[in-house]
């Protein structure tokens, strides 16, 4: 795909977010899709490509009355939607479809007809991790944290500071689920979930969804909103379970995906005006800042200590409030992409004036995958 040859021309989240017991998991996907089609002024018959994770592409397509000539059901966890953007851009460039719809919906909080992930006791995870008492992601994604902290001199207070700064961004966003200001002491005295992770260092659990529509950039002017161009993309996978991650102080998937995205966009981290770093738990953006090349190993803590990523800082990060304070339905990657698109359109709640390049970077499962998209609003 040539940089800026594909554009996002439709983007929307579900009508309601947070607590949405009136919609099922599938229903949230469809609500987001209808809103994105309305945003782009398109009908189902205008869409010929569908990508989704959690639900099957055929379920989403058929429910909406779409007959796709291209589908993608890639599910590599929360960053699946970054991979869908990458694959859709390639599919449009290859002529497999002209207009691709990517949907996310998840009844994370209300659990209305959720997508089920049964663990198999004969799988590698079932044999070599399940017997030791792992459960929710908070007992797995968090595993590298103590090692990362020891090797880099990052403290529990640094993690808490990250949560506090993201709450500052959320306070500016009427759609954010958690908006009340918090202090470092509040974070460090919140309920212990899985040491060293306390409740306020963990993502929210909410209901919601989002959808994107991509097409060729030369059609960009045919739509009601400002086109947002795909400038570069990356993806990667690594280990199937966290005990096999080769180094707990750096993610190979992050490095590979980030290098591909920045390389294909022809930019360096210094060119980035706005950054979304998927934050299921507070330590993940620290690794991402380092692995994407915004700083050297161990230096991410200074971005928080010096408030460079906070409102008014030189590198605004997670301006919606992120997974910790905005929304987190389960596979949060779509919400990072939505905020990047809003920033590039100039319509975000905490809009960064003059931002021209936005990067959305996602983690999949237990640092098992990564996806990175570089957006720009300049043709």
């Amino acid at each position, binding site marked *: 795909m040539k940089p800026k040859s594909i554009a996002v021309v439709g983007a929307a989240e579900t009508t309601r977010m947070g607590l949405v017991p009136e919609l099922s998991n599938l229903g949230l996907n469809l609500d987001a899709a209808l809103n994105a089609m309305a945003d782009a002024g398109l009908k189902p018959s205008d869409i010929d490509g569908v990508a989704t994770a959690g639900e099957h592409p055929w379920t989403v397509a058929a429910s909406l009355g779409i007959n796709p000539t291209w589908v993608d059901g890639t599910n590599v966890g929360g960053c699946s939607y970054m991979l869908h953007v990458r694959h859709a851009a390639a599919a449009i460039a290859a002529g497999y479809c002209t207009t691709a719809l990517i949907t996310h919906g998840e009844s994370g909080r209300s659990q209305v007809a959720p997508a089920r992930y049964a663990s198999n006791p004969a799988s590698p995870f079932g044999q070599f991790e399940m017997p*030791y*008492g792992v459960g929710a992601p908070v007992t797995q994604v968090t595993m590298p*944290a103590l090692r990362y902290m020891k090797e880099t001199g990052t403290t529990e207070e640094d993690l808490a500071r990250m949560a506090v700064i993201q709450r500052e961004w959320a306070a500016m966003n009427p759609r954010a689920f958690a908006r009340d200001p918090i202090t470092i002491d509040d974070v460090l005295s919140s309920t212990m979930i899985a040491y060293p992770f306390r409740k306020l260092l963990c993502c929210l659990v909410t209901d919601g969804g989002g959808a994107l529509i991509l097409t060729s950039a030369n059609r960009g002017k045919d739509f009601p909103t400002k086109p947002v161009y795909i400038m570069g993309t990356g993806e990667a996978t690594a280990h199937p379970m966290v*005990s096999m991650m080769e180094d707990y102080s750096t993610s190979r998937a992050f490095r590979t995906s980030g290098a591909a995205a920045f390389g294909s966009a022809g930019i360096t981290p210094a060119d980035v005006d706005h950054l979304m770093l998927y934050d299921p738990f507070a330590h993940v953006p620290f690794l991402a800042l380092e692995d994407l090349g915004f700083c050297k190993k161990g230096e991410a803590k200074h971005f928080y200590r010096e408030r460079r990523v906070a409102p008014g800082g030189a590198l605004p990060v997670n301006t919606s409030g992120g997974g910790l304070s905005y929304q987190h339905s389960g596979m949060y990657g779509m919400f990072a992409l939505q905020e990047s698109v809003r920033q590039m359109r100039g319509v975000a709640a905490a809009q960064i004036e003059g931002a021209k390049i936005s990067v959305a970077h996602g983690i999949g499962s237990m640092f098992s995958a990564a996806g990175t998209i570089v957006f720009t609003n300049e043709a």
Partner: protein
Amino acid sequence: MQRILPQPTPETKHYWEGCKAGELRLQRCTACAHVYFPPRPFCPRCACREVSVEVASGEATLYSYVINHRPRPDMGTAPYAIAVVTLKEGPRMMTNIVDCPQTPEALQLDMPLRVVFEPQTDEITLPVFAPRGAGA
């Protein structure tokens, strides 16, 4: 309540039989000498299918951990550590740390550990790790 147990496959049977016999079995590639875990019938470094089984020393160090304060129902009611250890031979594995308070003060990264075998059923014995010097 019996804890959730693994179900061996043909590719991992030797490993679980080893645990039952009190041996922590790793695999070594006959072509490139790479020692690896989890088990599979070929070398993940060079794809050679000629691999041998060897017994590990049982020595390890603590690489990282979390202490789960919301115990899974089959794991009892007290907070417990889920750990990843680095074996002396190189590979890492997930485990639990026994004969040790489940506290940040007692669980220090890089502390030396040794394998202990805990029978669960007639078929399954789980390898866990204890501080080296504790007990025996």
